[in-house]
């Protein structure tokens, strides 16, 4: 088999679409001024127009109003702004509890922990074996003292998609705010923020073939947050600093280009990958939602019994295939994925987990190439493994 380069790490980030790059270049080379109010010079107004067009596109995609979209430097900043912004704006309030799930991204978990040090009472919601929020546990944790609940929409590692509608009902019954990190599900799983009752929502550009370093936070008109980056009146006075005009324009363009047909194709490729592994290899376990309609379309997470993920990743890398693992050996902290452990999995299952994440640029040939090499690598490593009983 001829060597190919197969990038299957699109839950982490994606290739920027050429049309996005072209659109961005206009703002690098032509309308490159600092975006400014209408009472300024023409280049500044043109730059501002670029931002506002993007804002409108993104607002429409989630059924929000234009002035409810705040551009940031990406999901991590959006998540920080959501949690800390709410906390800062409500210091005087009696509500002292913040509830997050155990499978959040570190930008939510660590923001919550930081607020815990500031005196907030942080509670962590359990998930079940497929990564779904334990609704009864959530109901127990959300009380009259709860200020904010933050639950990730589609999980970056295991792909499980939460039922935002029913979660927001529980949260609002107690008068708390509801934030969701929709970074990984954005546009792949449509969300109507008004219908679902979402107060704050994080979205990001680089997961949908837009540029890196741009994201947004949807902040409902009815919610007041305080800014955490001082230094200017930009973004409705919610984020100081010169706007990343080309990045924001590129984000808007990426949203405009995004197509349902691509999602359907990605689903087909993802399902094909799974079916081929299931029928071609023994000891393969699916991590995350087994109901694929409640899974991010571009996510497949599997554990291969008796072998360790870093070895798999390295072997596949030598064959041109890019994937990641939840194994401790792979992480900078040498800790197994907190998400897989929160789901009640053993350390071995976390160590043996591999995430496959295709995109619109993935071809059927890439999938077949991947299946072929994963089978070879898994077989090779199992021959080496002391955990496999000798035949």
């Amino acid at each position, binding site marked *: 088999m001829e060597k190919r380069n197969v990038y299957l790490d699109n839950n982490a980030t994606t290739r920027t679409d050429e049309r996005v790059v072209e659109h961005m270049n206009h703002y690098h080379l032509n309308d490159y001024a600092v975006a400014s109010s209408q009472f300024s010079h023409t280049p500044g107004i043109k730059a501002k127009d670029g931002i506002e067009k993007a804002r409108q596109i993104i607002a429409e995609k989630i059924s929000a109003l234009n002035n409810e979209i705040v551009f940031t430097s990406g999901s991590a900043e959006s998540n920080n702004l959501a949690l800390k912004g709410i906390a800062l704006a409500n210091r005087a309030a009696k509500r002292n509890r913040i509830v997050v799930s155990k499978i959040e991204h570190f930008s939510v978990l660590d923001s919550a922990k930081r607020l815990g040090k500031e005196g907030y009472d942080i509670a962590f919601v359990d998930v079940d074996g497929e990564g779904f929020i334990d609704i009864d546990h959530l109901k127990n944790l959300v009380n009259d003292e709860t200020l904010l609940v933050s639950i990730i929409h589609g999980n970056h590692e295991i792909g499980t998609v939460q039922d935002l509608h029913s979660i927001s009902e529980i949260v609002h019954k107690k008068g708390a705010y509801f934030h969701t990190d929709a970074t990984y599900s954005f546009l792949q799983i449509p969300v109507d923020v008004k219908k679902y009752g979402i107060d704050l929502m994080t979205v990001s550009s680089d997961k949908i073939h837009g540029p890196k370093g741009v994201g947004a936070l949807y902040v409902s008109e009815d919610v007041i947050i305080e800014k955490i980056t001082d230094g200017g009146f930009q973004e409705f006075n919610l984020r100081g600093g010169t706007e990343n005009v080309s990045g924001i324009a590129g984000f808007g363009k990426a949203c405009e280009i995004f197509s349902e047909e691509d999602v359907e194709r990605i689903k087909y490729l993802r399902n094909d990958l799974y079916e081929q592994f299931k029928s071609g290899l023994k000891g393969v376990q699916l991590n995350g939602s087994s109901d694929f309609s409640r899974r991010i379309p571009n996510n497949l997470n599997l554990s291969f*019994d008796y072998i360790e993920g870093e070895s798999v990743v390295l072997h596949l890398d030598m064959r041109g295939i890019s994937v990641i693992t939840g194994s401790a050996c792979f992480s900078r902290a040498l800790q197994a994925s907190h998400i897989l452990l929160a789901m009640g999995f053993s350390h071995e299952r976390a160590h043996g987990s591999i995430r496959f994440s295709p995109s619109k640029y993935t071809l059927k040939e890439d999938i077949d190439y991947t299946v072929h090499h994963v089978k070879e690598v898994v077989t090779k490593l199992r021959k080496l493994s002391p955990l496999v009983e000798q035949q």
Partner: protein
Amino acid sequence: MSFPYSEKVMEYFSHPKNVGEIEDADAVATEGSPACGDMVKLYLKINPETKSIEDIKFKSYGCASNIATASIITELSKNKTIEEAKKLTWKKASETLGGLPPAKVHCAVLAVDALRTAIENYEHKMGLLKEKKSTDTNIIEKRLKRVINPLTGLEVLKVNFVKKIDLDDGIITITVNLDSDHPFANNIREEIVERLEPLWDIKKVYVIFNDENERH
């Protein structure tokens, strides 16, 4: 491009030497556990006259450095006497591989530990010990120290995983808090037996799981 592993590590990772098992091995040892993501098992064939390691093979569950260090240990100790092999250090193993990333040094330590444990097992078995201490609960606990509970990744002795240790006339019975149908129940049983049975005055070791009452 900066890759965390040296070329030599990658070479051994891609093409490990001395992989496999030795059926009539004179000494066997396992260190690490799947729960930690690192596990090495060594098989040694030792010449009873010369005390030289005539053959050594390994199996490994773990990352690239785990596989590479296990492989290099087998090469460095092959055709050495057990006294020479005992002097092998993790530093030597790491140096031979052109260095390891700091986070992966423990892999070399693990491989060297496995070699030392295997030799110790052999010495027990062959009556080569300078001083013969009778096995007691302390010695048993010391030997089980590095056995890891597959469910939690913690040492079995620390987390009430080992429920009971019985020692009676050279027969040890270890009762553990694990069901016999756990995927790694057999590995745990094997590992415990492997660590205790080589003791010179021990005849038999039994491991009893939650759902078992009798000795197997």
